C-alpha cells in the first residue's frame, strides 16, 4: 500500500494555529438584518480560507451557506469580501492572513443568504454585451486563419471566470447597478479585439450607452480584485479608445 501524502511537505515545519473567523450572517427566513458571528478554527498555514468555511460548515454550523466548486481558482464560485477586499476564498492562504479574518458577501448584488448573493443581475449585464463571436457571410471550410500576434491581442481578457469580484468591487456599480460593470466590458473586449469577430460596431454601440464604459471612473478596484490578474482597467480604457477613434 502506498502512503498518502497528508500535507505538502514543501512547506517547512507545519504548525496549526487558531484563527478567528468573523462572518456576516443573514438568513432571510429568520433574520431581519444581517449580523456578525465569530467561529474559532484550527488551521494549517497552507489551508485556504475556503477550508476554514468548509470546516465551520462541516463541524460547527451546517447552516453556514456559501458557494464553492473547484476550490483552486478556476470556476469563480467563491468570490467574497475577505478583510474588506474581494477575493476568491480558495485562492487566499491562511499563512497570508492575520489571526482575525472577516468574511462577508460581495457587495452590489442582492444578498440571498450568508455569503450567497443573487448573480442574475451580473449575468444579465454580461449577456447584454453580446459575449459571443459574431461573423457574417461564408465561413472557411477549415479554421479561421489568425496569427499568434492577433491571438495575443485579446489573450488577457479570455481569462475571465465570471466570478464577479471586479464588478462587485466597483464603487460606481455599488451606487448604480444599471452600469454594465467591469466584467461585462472585459467580455466585450475579448471579442472587440478578436480579429475573427465582425460584431465590433454593434458591441461598441451597446457600450457607448450612458450605462456603458463611460461610467468607469478608473479607480482600479476591479484590476486589484481580479483573481485571474486581468488588467481590467486597461481593457476598459482600450474599449473607450476604440469608441473615441472607432478603430480597434
Amino acid at each position, binding site marked *: *500500500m*502506498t*502512503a*498518502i*501524502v*497528508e*500535507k*505538502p*511537505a*514543501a512547506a517547512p515545519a507545519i504548525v496549526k494555529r487558531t484563527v478567528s473567523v468573523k462572518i456576516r450572517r443573514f438568513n*432571510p427566513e*429568520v433574520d431581519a438584518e444581517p449580523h456578525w458571528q465569530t467561529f474559532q478554527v484550527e488551521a494549517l498555514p*497552507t489551508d*485556504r480560507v475556503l477550508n476554514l468555511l468548509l470546516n465551520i*460548515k*462541516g*463541524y460547527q454550523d*451546517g*447552516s453556514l*451557506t*456559501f458557494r464553492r*466548486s*473547484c*476550490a*483552486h*481558482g*478556476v*470556476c*469563480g*464560485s467563491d468570490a467574497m469580501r475577505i478583510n474588506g477586499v474581494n477575493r476568491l476564498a480558495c*485562492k487566499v*492562504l491562511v499563512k497570508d492572513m492575520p489571526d482575525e479574518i472577516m468574511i462577508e458577501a460581495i457587495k452590489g448584488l442582492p444578498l*440571498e*443568504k*450568508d455569503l*450567497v448573493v443573487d448573480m442574475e443581475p451580473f*449575468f444579465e449585464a454580461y*449577456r447584454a454585451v*453580446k*459575449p*459571443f*463571436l459574431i461573423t457574417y457571410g461564408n*465561413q472557411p471550410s*477549415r*479554421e*479561421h*486563419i*489568425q*496569427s*499568434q500576434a*492577433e*491571438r495575443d491581442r*485579446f*489573450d488577457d481578457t*479570455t*481569462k*475571465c*471566470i*465570471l466570478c464577479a469580484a471586479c464588478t462587485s468591487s466597483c464603487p460606481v456599480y455599488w451606487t448604480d447597478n444599471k452600469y454594465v460593470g467591469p466584467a461585462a466590458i472585459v467580455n466585450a473586449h475579448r471579442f472587440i479585439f*478578436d480579429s475573427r469577430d465582425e460584431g465590433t460596431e454593434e458591441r461598441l454601440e451597446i457600450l457607448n450607452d450612458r450605462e456603458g464604459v463611460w461610467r468607469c471612473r478608473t479607480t482600479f478596484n476591479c484590476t486589484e480584485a481580479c483573481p485571474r490578474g486581468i488588467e481590467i482597467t486597461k481593457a476598459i480604457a482600450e474599449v473607450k479608445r476604440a469608441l473615441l477613434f472607432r478603430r480597434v
Partner: protein
Amino acid sequence: MPQVHQHNYDVVIVGAGGAGMRAALESSSRVRTAVLTKLYPTRSHTGAAQGGMCAALANVEEDNWEWHTFDTVKGGDYLVDQDAAEVMCREAIDAVIDLEKMGLPFNRTPEGRIDQRRFGGHTRNHGEAAVRRSCFAADRTGHMILQTLYQNCVKQDVQFFNEFYVLDLIVQDGHAAGAVAYELATGDIHVFAAKAVILATGGFGKVFKTTSNAHTLTGDGMGIIWRKGLPLEDMEFFQFHPTGLAGLGILLSEAARGEGGILRNADGERFMERYAPTIKDLAPRDIVARSMANEVREGRGAGPEKDYVLLDLTHLPREQIDAKLPDITEFARTYLGVEPYTEPVPVYPTAHYAMGGVPTNIRAEVLGNNTEVVPGLYAAGEVACVSVHGSNRLGTNSLLDINVFGRRAGIAAAEYAATHSHVGLPVGAQGTVTAMVSTLLESTGTERVATLRAEMQSTMDRNAQVYRTDASLKQAEEDIAALKQRYANVSISDKGKRFNSDLLEAIELGFLLDLAEVLVVGARARNESRGGHFREDYPNRDDVNFMRHTMAYREGDGAIRLDYKPVVQTRYQPMERKY
C-alpha cells in the same frame, strides 16, 4: 410539504458542463429544450481541464485519425469499445473546427492555423514516437471550451435552470419520461416532463480525498441511474492523474510534460526512462502514476517524508512557460509557494477521472442491460461509459469525448423527441424526491455529513487508489458498508427552505457512498491488472478471463450483482502494452 411545480419540455438536459452545453446547442435548435444544472454553467468542472483536445488535424506534422484511434485503444489497455473510439477520433477533427468557428481562441502556428502539441500516449504511426496532436489554448483549454460553449448558448438563447439539483429520473413503462429537481433558492420541487432526457452530470471524484475534482463532483447522475436498478459499467476503473500538487491534489496538466517537463526522483534521476524507454514522461497516465508511486514506495521519493516526486520545468525557457503553462505554474506558486522557473514542483497522483459510468452506445443512448436501450434516455461525458476510454483514458480525450458525444446526444435526443409523444408521468412523480428531502429535514440522527464523508474518502485513498489488493479492497468494502449504516442516522442542522446546501450535501453523500461501494465491489471481482486498475495480487492483464466490461446492478434488497459485457473489437487485436 414543499411546493411542487410542473414543466413540460421536449428535451431535458441534466448538467451544463461541456457535454450538457454541447448537447444543448444541438437540441435547442431543433426542439424545446431545458438545461438543468446544480451550478451556474460556467462553474462546471470542464473549466478546470487544462492541456488540450486531441484531433488529427495534421497542422504541424503528419497524423491521421486512425493512429489516434489506435493510441486510444492501446491507451485504454484494450478494454475500449473500438467502434466508439473510431467514431470519436474520426469526428474529433470536425469537433475542433466547430469550436474554433464558435470562437474558441486556440493558440496558433506561425501560419495562423491551430497549433498542436505532444500529449501522453499520443503517437505517430502506432507508437513510433510522440506526435503533436493536442489543440490547445495555453493551459486553460477546458476553461475556453466551457466559456465558448456558454457564449454560444447565450447567443442561441438556451433556457437554463441554474442551481436546480436533479435528484430523480422519471421512468414510465421503461421509457424516460422526465426528471425531478430541487430548487436551491426556494426549496421547491420541480417536475419536468420530457420526451427525452440527457444525463451530462460528470464524475464522482469526491469519493476520494486526494482528487483534482471539484466539491460538486458527487456522481449524482450515476447515483440516480443506480437507484433505478439500471446498470453501471466499469466503475472500478478510476484514473489517477500523475501530477497533482503534492498533498493537495490540484491538477498540473500533462501539458507540462508535453512542453518538455521531466519527472525526477529524490536522486534527480529521470526515472520514467526505466518504465517507458520510448516515450518516457509521456507514457499514458496509469503507467506514469504507478511508476511515481513505485519510486516513493522504494524509498526514492523526494521531500522530508520522501512521499512525492518532482516535476522539473527549470530547463524550459521562461517565455515558453509563460506562454504555454501560465495557470499551472501559478498554482504551484499560490498553493505550494514553489517557483517553477527555478525549483522543481512536488507532485503525486491524484484521483482524476471515472472511466466507467452509465453504459451507452455510439448514439449516446443509455443501455438498460448488455444490448437493449432505455428509450428516450441519453448520456454523454464523464457520466457515461461508451466506452472510449476503456481502462485508462488518454489525456485530452475527455474534452474530445464531451464534444463528440455531447453533440451526438443532443441530435439523437432531439430527433427522438420530434418523432415521439410524451409517455405521461406516473401519479406522484415527485414522491421519491419529497421523501428524500423530508427524511433528512426531519431526521434527529446523530451522525454528521462531514465526518462520514471524510471517513469514506480516507478509506478510499488508503485502500482503493493506485495500488489495490483483495485485502485492501475488502477493508474498503467493510468500511463503506459501516458508513452506509451510519448514513441512515445522519442529520443536518439547516432545516430551512432557502439555499439549504446542508441538505444537498447530505443527499450528495448518499450518492457517493453508493458509488464508492460499486467501485470497490467491481475492483475486488476483477482479479487482474489493466489500465487504471492495478491489483498487486494479480499484477498481469488476464485477457482470457477479464477482457470484458463489468456491468453492476443494484438488486431489490440493495445487494450488488455483477455481470459482464463483451468488448467491441474491430481492427485491433490486444497486444502487450509497452511504451
